[in-house]
């Protein structure tokens, strides 16, 4: 048999503090915020009249992706003012997700629930605030009493709408991002441990070539995580856009 012991969950998610109350997760989060800000400040300082190249080209691609792929698809032309907010969220989540596959970092900062929870609370405050700003107190009426429903059914519909709009939305935003990144991280750890244990199988040398199989799976999953890191940032941003768009313009 091979000696394979899966480490306790705290061991794969936790590092000792770099200095008090500042660990690797905080380091990744701060780095993500700084890198995003610096890239866009650099891009903004370039001459806009020349053909874009280098860092400005990258920044313009991202802005165009947010505008055409997210804002125009969900909020329409009126929502273009939300591009900076959505792009900040997208870049921050993406840069927090990507360290999950960067060697030696190997930890997505969003796999700890604090960052997703804070981001979705922010989104929650923003979309409710937008609703009250655009519709006043009528926001509660349009979100809790959707039009076109028979009067008697409001006893049933109103609590459901309340729970799904004000409680489930931030919860599901949090859990979606957090659980996806955590699941990816645990999968990578599992296959890395399995191939390591097979390569070092002392008692049974026949097992050593078998270790290639989980290694291939590990490489495949690393590629898959590249996709997941992007997709989760995209889904978080597009759901934010849908929520804000729905709060700004009630369904008629």
């Amino acid at each position, binding site marked *: 048999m091979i000696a394979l012991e899966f480490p306790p969950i705290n061991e794969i998610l936790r590092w000792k503090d770099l200095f008090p109350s500042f660990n690797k997760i905080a380091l990744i989060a701060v780095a993500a915020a700084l890198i995003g800000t610096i890239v866009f400040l650099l891009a903004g300082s370039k001459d806009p009249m020349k053909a874009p190249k280098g860092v400005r080209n990258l920044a313009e691609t991202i802005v165009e992706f947010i505008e055409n792929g997210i804002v125009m698809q969900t909020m329409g032309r009126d929502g273009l003012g939300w591009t900076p907010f959505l792009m900040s969220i997208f870049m921050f989540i993406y840069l927090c997700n990507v360290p999950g596959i960067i060697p030696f970092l190997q930890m997505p900062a969003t796999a700890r629930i604090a960052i997703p929870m804070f981001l979705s609370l922010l989104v929650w405050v923003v979309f409710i605030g937008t609703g009250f700003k655009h519709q006043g107190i009528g926001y509660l009426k349009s979100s809790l009493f959707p039009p076109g429903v028979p009067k008697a059914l409001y006893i049933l519909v109103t609590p459901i709408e309340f729970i799904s709009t004000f409680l489930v939305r931030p919860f599901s935003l949090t859990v979606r991002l957090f659980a996806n990144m*955590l699941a990816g991280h645990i999968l990578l750890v599992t296959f890395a441990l399995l191939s390591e244990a097979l390569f070092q199988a002392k008692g049974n040398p026949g097992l050593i070539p078998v270790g290639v199989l989980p290694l291939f799976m590990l490489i495949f999953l690393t590629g898959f995580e590249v996709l997941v890191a992007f*997709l989760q940032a995209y*889904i978080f941003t*597009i*759901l934010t856009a*849908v929520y804000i768009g729905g709060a700004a313009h009630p369904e008629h």
Partner: protein
Amino acid sequence: MEALSALVAELTGDEEKAAAAASSAGFAYGLAAIGPGIGIGYLVGKSVEAMARQPEAAGMVRTTMFLGIAFTEALALIGFVVFILIGL
């Protein structure tokens, strides 16, 4: 299952509880993955059909597809969180 119950019979107190938690965590996640699996498969299949029939609407269909996937997938992910909470 017999092997499992034989294993549980040999354990005592806390060990038994931990063994039951570990095995039920596995069942919990497996059950939670069935529904969303069917749902996402159906959703993506229908979206591909729609995109093939009307390629000019592909962008809109894709956006809506990702939204649907996000909502469907949430159920499986809650199952995964429960799996961690009771299993570890």
